């Protein structure tokens, strides 16, 4: 089907200034992505999958400038012993980064392309699988035009997390980064991501986990108010593997986080969780698609959104259970805490089940702070604001508990408390 002319025009305008990197192992994948992108066009407000989130600011040709937060970005993960890798407005910063060597893992950069690389089997491959049955053209754009990213091969159990730090210093930066993560059988690692990245950020992470491999992914999206971000995580899980991803988002005018997870090996576990705190001009969209194509796998989606002053939260989450995926255990919960009447939560939970022996549950709720609880706390002397904060932290706790490491949970909670405290000043 030919694309309508406005879509062709919009795509041409968007990619006019971009160049397709030539040569190296990724060239074929990039060319393929560009031809898929050309066939799809960019998301438009009339697309069903973008019904709740206007993609205009994510696809516009000229990046709307985003003020760089002048106060220091509150440090997160600072106290952790970690391997730091820094990107400033999407550009690798060797000075600020640690040496990319760590036992149990090998890390290369996409920009330093060679002719042969293990990432060739994954780069664009998982993204392509993720395009069916729903198009994710921003991810195809990313595969085609990504300027850099990390190629992380976990073959052992590195002693510390790999920590990707994104800094935003230019008001008009437009970053496109693409990471590939491969976890070998029996290997296990933690990847941290944090920071606001750029005025506009398009980020893709493809994750291939072999049988019995484990990957923990914890992300804190920075608190620059005006930044926009579209991110995709594509993960394929082998037999008895474990993948847990958690994202904390505080502020940011527009964020779309998509996660596409596919179980291809039996007895695997995949958890996707997120907590977001939005105040005012804030639109946050979590879009998740989980495909069970193996026996006895467990998937969990836990999303909590705290919204105030007209902030908007979106959740689109789907569990697809293929005919042979018996004994699937699928759980999905999406909840919002609306701190005033102006804020809004839009949820579209979906189950599509073709196997007969499965246990899938989903729920979505939206509500204000419970008045009885609030009074109880206040009657004990806890001031109203603090009581609300306690209840807010309690509200998102189920999502934060999806982070396996307790020290990281505390770090996330500290960030949440700092956000709440700032609102009270």
């Amino acid at each position, binding site marked *: 089907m030919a694309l309508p002319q406005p879509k062709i025009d919009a795509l041409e305008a968007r990619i006019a200034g971009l160049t397709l990197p030539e040569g190296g192992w990724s060239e074929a994948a990039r060319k393929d992505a560009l031809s898929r992108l050309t066939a799809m066009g960019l998301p438009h407000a009339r697309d069903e999958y973008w019904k709740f989130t206007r993609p205009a600011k994510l696809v516009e040709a000229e990046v709307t400038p985003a003020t760089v937060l002048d106060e220091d970005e509150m440090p997160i993960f600072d106290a952790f012993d970690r391997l730091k890798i820094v990107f400033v407005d999407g550009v690798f910063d060797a000075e600020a980064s640690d040496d990319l060597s760590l036992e149990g893992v090998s890390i290369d950069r996409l920009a330093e392309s060679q002719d042969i690389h293990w990432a060739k089997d994954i780069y664009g491959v998982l993204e392509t699988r993720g395009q069916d049955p729903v198009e994710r053209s921003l991810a195809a754009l990313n595969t085609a035009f990504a300027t850099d990213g990390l190629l992380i091969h976990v073959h052992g159990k590195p002693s510390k997390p790999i920590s990707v730090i994104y800094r935003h210093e230019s008001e008009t930066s437009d970053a496109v980064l693409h990471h590939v993560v491969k976890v070998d059988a029996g290997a296990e690692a933690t990847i941290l991501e944090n920071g606001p990245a750029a005025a506009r950020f398009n980020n893709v992470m493809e994750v291939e986990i072999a049988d019995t491999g484990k990957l923990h992914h914890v992300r804190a999206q920075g608190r620059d108010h005006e930044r926009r971000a579209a991110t995709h995580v594509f993960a394929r899980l082998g037999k008895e593997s474990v993948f847990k991803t958690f994202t904390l988002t505080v502020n940011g005018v527009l964020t779309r986080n998509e996660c596409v997870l596919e179980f291809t090996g039996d007895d695997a576990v995949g958890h996707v969780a997120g907590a977001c705190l939005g105040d005012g001009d804030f639109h946050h969209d979590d879009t998740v698609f989980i495909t069970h194509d193996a026996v006895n796998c467990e998937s969990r989606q836990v999303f909590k959104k705290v919204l105030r002053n007209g902030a908007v939260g979106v959740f689109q989450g789907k569990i697809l259970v293929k005919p042979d995926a018996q004994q699937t255990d699928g759980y999905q919960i999406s909840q919002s805490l609306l701190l005033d009447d102006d804020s809004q939560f839009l949820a579209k939970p979906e189950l599509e089940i073709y196997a007969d022996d499965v246990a899938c549950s989903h729920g979505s709720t939206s509500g204000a702070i*419970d008045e009885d*609880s609030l009074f*109880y*706390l206040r*009657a*004990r002397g806890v001031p109203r604001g603090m009581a609300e904060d*306690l209840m807010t932290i309690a509200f998102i706790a189920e999502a934060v508990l999806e982070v396996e490491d307790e020290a990281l949970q505390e770090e996330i909670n500290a960030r949440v408390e700092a956000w709440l405290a700032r609102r009270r000043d």
Partner: protein
Amino acid sequence: MLEIKNLQVKLEEEDKQILKGVDLTVEAGKVHAIMGPNGSGKSTLSYVLSGRDGYEVTDGTATLAGEDILDMEPEERAAAGLFLAFQYPVEIPGVGNMTFMRTAVNSQRKARGQEEMSSTDFLKLVREKAKELKIDADMLKRPVNVGFSGGEKKRNEILQMAMLEPKMCILDETDSGLDVDAMRLVADGVNALRDEGRGFLVITHYQRLLDHIQPDVVHIMSNGRIIKTGGPELALEVEKNGYEHLKEEVA
């Protein structure tokens, strides 16, 4: 300590008068009991005094140690020394009981210009008080009242009271749902706090609690008013004859 004069209260949402002129004074060092039929306004009185939304004071005053409390926020009343043990303690999933109590203790201290209690001192104190009330460590770790039995919830109220050391304690049917042993524990908890400087207002339906917590004064509330006030013998009379003849007597 607590002085209530001609307190008249209606519901905010409806045109329904619930308290129709309550007069009541609880002196420091004394224990007053309120008894009265279901729906007579006992809980309403305790909620209005502690500052719950939904009620409108149409007339009258209430002071705590001379301070007008009716214009205060609930947390200010608490910091001023008012404590209500709820008839139905609220479950708060996700908020740990310990965190809750420490926040409450330190918020009140802060409001009074006192230094916050260190976590070691707090822990020591809470363990000691919990032990006296036979509240195990597990209950302290769990979210506030979540999954607690009826009796455990009531004991948790008394634990909070012991930690906060309020000037004026209002206990709304803290005895209901308690087995004999738990009733003893609760009464011991209350008696341990009896003090020259502290007043108690104990709302109850049963003489049984008053066997353990000897009241100085007993009031009977009916249809939004205190219809009779007397000594401990009044509670025995109610136990024996019910409220009907009292109502008639007054009418």
